[in-house]
């Protein structure tokens, strides 16, 4: 792997891997699906949970590939895993700030990236070991988020949302994987609500810069 030239595609692939695991973990931790429907699996040398329902897996994979599509375009600011109550009020958002991913032209998606330090040394673009370690740390933080979060009401559902960068063009084509939403006050979802942020962890592995936090709707919704 280390010999492999790191392109943006590789970085994004690494991120989407993580995103998939994170979604599964969140679904398990927030009990969106019954715990019995989760398998124990291993990723990043960490015991994680994976939903075994083929439809759920399929949905997540589809959603993640849709996210990946947008990521490759370089227009995504944040990825959010939003948890709604039965009556469609968002209660929690698991935010992943990906706005600091390197931006390259579409043609250069598969061009290996290079960064040189001030002294001319080549810096690692994607130090795998470091990355996995940070992913692991983030996942274990996520896995313990339930202790700090308020318990969810019955029958919550989840969704995946992306917040585009300021200049990002919304993906309006057919078929349409995304539902465009106008941000209210610069916020994608539920901007009006009082919310509380719970920092999870930041990841800085080479060019993979990522911040993860949880937004919890404050007060009874």
């Amino acid at each position: 792997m280390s010999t492999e030239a790191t392109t943006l595609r590789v970085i994004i692939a690494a991120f989407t891997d993580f995103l998939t695991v994170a979604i599964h973990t969140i679904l398990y931790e927030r009990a969106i699906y019954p715990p019995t429907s989760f398998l124990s699996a291993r990723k990043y040398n960490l015991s994680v949970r994976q939903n075994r329902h083929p439809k759920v897996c399929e949905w997540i994979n589809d959603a993640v590939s849709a996210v990946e599509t947008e990521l490759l375009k370089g227009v995504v600011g944040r990825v959010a895993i939003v948890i709604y109550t039965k009556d469609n009020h968002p209660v929690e958002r698991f935010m992943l700030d990906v706005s600091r991913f390197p931006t390259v032209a579409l043609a250069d998606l598969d061009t290996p990236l290079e960064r040189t330090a001030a002294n001319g040394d080549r810096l690692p673009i994607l130090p795998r070991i470091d990355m996995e370690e940070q992913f692991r740390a983030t996942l274990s933080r996520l896995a313990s988020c339930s202790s700090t979060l308020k318990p969810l009401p019955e029958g919550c559902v989840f969704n995946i949302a992306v917040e585009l960068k300021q200049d990002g063009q919304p993906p309006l084509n057919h078929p349409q994987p995304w539902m465009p939403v106008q941000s209210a006050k610069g916020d994608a979802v539920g901007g009006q609500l009082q919310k509380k942020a719970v920092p999870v962890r930041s990841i800085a592995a080479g060019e993979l810069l990522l911040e993860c936090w949880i937004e919890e709707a404050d007060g009874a919704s």
Partner: protein
Amino acid sequence: MGSRLDEKSKLVRKRIEGHTFEDEQGDEYEGSKFGGFTEYFRRKKIKLQNLDAQLRAQSADKPQIFKGVVCHINGYTQPSLNDLHTLIVQHGGGFIQYLDGKTMVTHIIASNLTPKKKEEFKRYRMVKPAWVVDSVNAGKLLPWDAYRVVDEGVGQKVLGFDNGQVVSQTNKKVQGYKEQTDASWYTSQLKGKSSQTPGGCRKQPSFTQTLTPDEDIEDDDEYPAPEITSSVERAFDQDDMDDTQPSLEEEQLPRDLLEARTEIETPPPTSPPLAPLQGVPVQPGNAAGADTAEQAGGSDSALRPREGSQEPDYTMAIVRDSEMLRSLSPSKLASMSAEEHNALLLSDPRIRKSTVVHPDFLEQYYRESRLHHLSTWKAELKSQLQALAAEKSSSQKTKLKKLPGQRRYIMHVDFDSFFAAVSLKKHPQYKDKPAVVAHGGGSGSEIASCNYPARKFGISNGMWMKRAQDLCPELKILPYDFPGYEEASRKFYDAIMATGGIVQSVSIDEALIDISAICFAESSTDGVKRNEGAVYREQRKADLIAQQLRDEVLEKTGCAVSVGIGGNILLAKVALRKAKPAGQYQLKPEEVLDFIGKLEVEKLPGVAWSIGGKLEEIGIKLVKDIREVSKEKLIGTLGPKTGEKLWDYSRGVDRTEVGDQVIRKSVSAEVNWGVRFENQEQVDEFMHGLCGELNKRLVKERVKGKQLTMKVMRRATDAPRDPPKHLGHGKCDTYNKSLQLGVATNDTDIITKEAIGMMKSFNISPGELRGIGIQMQKLDPIKPGAEGVDIGSQLRLQFKVGQASRPAPVQDDAENAGKSAEDPIQDVVTPEKQRIADVNKPSVPLWPVNPSTPTKKALNMLGTQFVLPTQVDPSVLAELPEDIIAKLAKHVRSTAQPAPLLPGKAEDTPRPTSRVQSPVPAFALPNQSQLDPSILEALPEDVRAEILGFYKSPGNRKRGEQALLPQSPRKLRTLPPIKQPVKRKRGGGLFAGRARSNLNSGDNSTLTQSNFVARPLAPKHLQEDGGATTTDTEAEPEELDPEFLAALPDDLRKEVLDQQRQARLQRTGGIDLSLHQRSKARKKKAPDEEGPLDRLLQLPPRPAKPTFTMRKLTELPDLRNAVKAWYQEFLDEGPYEEDVAALVKYLSDVVVEERDMAKAVAVVKWLAWVVEEREEGLGERVHAAWQQAVEAVKEGVQSAVQDRALGSVDLA
């Protein structure tokens, strides 16, 4: 005696005998000193001898039988050690309590020994306690060897001295405590008392029976036991008869009196009455027989009550009567070897005559076996019927096709008490009186058939005469009239055949007829349609046929038959019950269920008390009860076959068809009566005869066998030498052995050779043999032909004696079927199994793989090696390599097949893109090194893997080489050459499927624009695969040429890129553990693909991370340390505003720029904690200042977070 070993015991004996006891003044009565154990023990033994001496002196009146005997007792005995000791000493013996050496004593008494001791004392006189007791009782010293404890094992014969003669004895079985308890002194004491009880009375009559016939002729004559089976007994009877009925026998039977007598008087069940020999009139004998029977019947009332169980005694008596046997005591008989015993037995010429050693035994045996006759005759009748039926029904069966749901009319025709009815024809005066057919008036004879008046008395078939006569004293007993039976049966069958239905003979007096066709002809329907009138007409016709049949049989034979008509065999049989006697009954479909339901289960055919008992356990008494029970339960109770059959039966369903023939599966010859051999030569000779018999039967059945099975009955070790039934086999162990002959044969010599070999391999001593049977299985029919001539002549030779003098077939009815178990000859007819498909056929037809070398080609070019099919599947042909196609084409053309079948090169032009004709041959793959890597690269991944896998596969090479091997032409002839999995596998996986899809894709309208655009990049011949690629998500995405892209219009380029990205996403969008599978191979490929694009994208320099203080701290631990240091530094005076502002600035930067909210929060929390910890001695003021600083920092961070529109952050 007198050996060196005896010396010591002699000394001991003398010492003991010389031992006297005066008083207790001897030195042995002194106190022993300390440590003087030896002294003590010596004294103890002397004192014990003192006791013995005193005892001996007191019992001087007893016989001194044990004089000279010194005994020691080992272990537990009965009687006890003390009793034995006293007995021995009282009778003059010496007794040693402590055995100092084995030779000290003459005898050691023990009832059982441990194996170790057995070995230790093997060479000494170990006797059982019974020796002492018996000797005392007998008043003399009995030879000790009859009471050995240790013997030489069963196999070792020992010499015994008996009355001055040296005899060889077999060793008795080693017995354990059981014997001791059974035969012990105490047990005998107990038994002595209980033997007075009435239980022993059974033995009493036997004493009268053991009287010799010379003295008790009358007695024997009055009790003609049915078990008298041999000529020996007949010989005795003959003697008797000479006295009682000389005139009758001698006048009327001017032939061998012995045999004649048997026929008339007491035909035993296992030995048939002799049929008339050539030229001898039968009738007088029969008449006389009848008279005798009547006489016997008349005198029956005068008979003393006699138990059937007395027969063994009787036969034993006969055995004992033999002078030779009589001269021997029973104990001597027991001590003889089996061969000696047999020799002794056979030394009586009369007995000898009836055993296997007699040269004519087999012939006589088969001639006299009545059941053999019955079965033979029935078999003959059946084969005749089959022939007849085959002739007739070949036309009928074609005419009558079995339609589903068709009505059937089956008639079951049965004589009413066949034997009785036929016999009564000769004695019409008894027609209305109770009469039975039996062997004779003897109380032990069995009733073969009884007429209806007799049945009114409760007499039934198979009943013992004794009981029948109790029920009806004036019962008339009729003799068998075998010729009459046969004649009646023939007429019966003639009449049945005349009905024109499909006939199946059940037995000589019963038959099943399928008359459906006739009935349908009458109603002119197909028997399926429900038409009231037609059904009625059919039923009427069936009744009519039955009536006609009955009339005809009555007219021809003078006997009444009953007919049951039903929709299947079961119903016909059930209906017959109602029809009897002399009637007919048709069970109509609408009343079937009621009728059957009311029956008791045991009335169903094939159900008797055994199954009935089982059914009663689950609460089934009537047939309708069965319907209540689930099939599973029934099957659980009765087993799958019977259970299902009964379940069907209870619903009136019976699937057997009239005319279903059981095919003979084996032919056997078996003798288990009169088997007594003296030596091996006799066995071999007998085997020869038996094999000859088997050969005869095989020839008669026109079959040859491939497997020879031998069954040997050996006398059970615990069975007496003379079984209860005279010369019968008694209790036996049965051994079986089979041999594959390889080639089907019926040759006597071969069979004999093998049979004798097998017999030897059993290693059974000839004297122990009690029955031998040989059976031929895996039968092949003999084809009539050149062989047939040979066999025909053999037939005549073989049957010169047996067949010509063969008596008119005798027969029995169903009542005797139960006895067939005793039939010494059993023709086992088992239904033949379905023949399995020929296993020798190769399951995978071989086909030479395409030759790639000239030599191989040359081999194939011969073209004569294979049988080419006349019908060629074009699709298969199309995929064959060209040279084979060419060869086939030649062949096919020669057989006038149209050329279009062959996809020759000529077709290349019209379909240039067809995969079939693609330059890559399906067969001859080039060497791996010849493969164009670029082409390989461009291939879809699965296809590429397959190609490479094919090169790797070792089996493939091999297969190719195998084609080189010269193949047996014989094998090849059977091969269907056009099917060849080898080729299919290769061609099919790689191209066959594509070829098929290509046929459609020629004008494929489903191709999308983007694909079309993408394709120019693919290698030329891949284009044809476009259709497959669009659908194949795993297909390798083509590398897009940037120049090409650049040349495209914007929107088109975007679409192309999207398309490509989409494809990639689909492969990469999951994680390994998810269901989404990512192709590792593809990942590996990535660098290769990008290899040519040797350029790097230099990333723009990143904005520097915000740092804290001059040391440029960024990491959390450093920040914490710095915060802590800061706090401690300004412990006294509180934080400076600038410092707090700097921290707030930094943390805000962290949140906003570094976007590490977690770090900022952690620093804030750290600071709060540090402040709250509060060093001792910290002033209130300073602390408040610090708290203010914390609040300021918190506020700063909070506002930074809010700047990012993240709401508030929890900093507590």
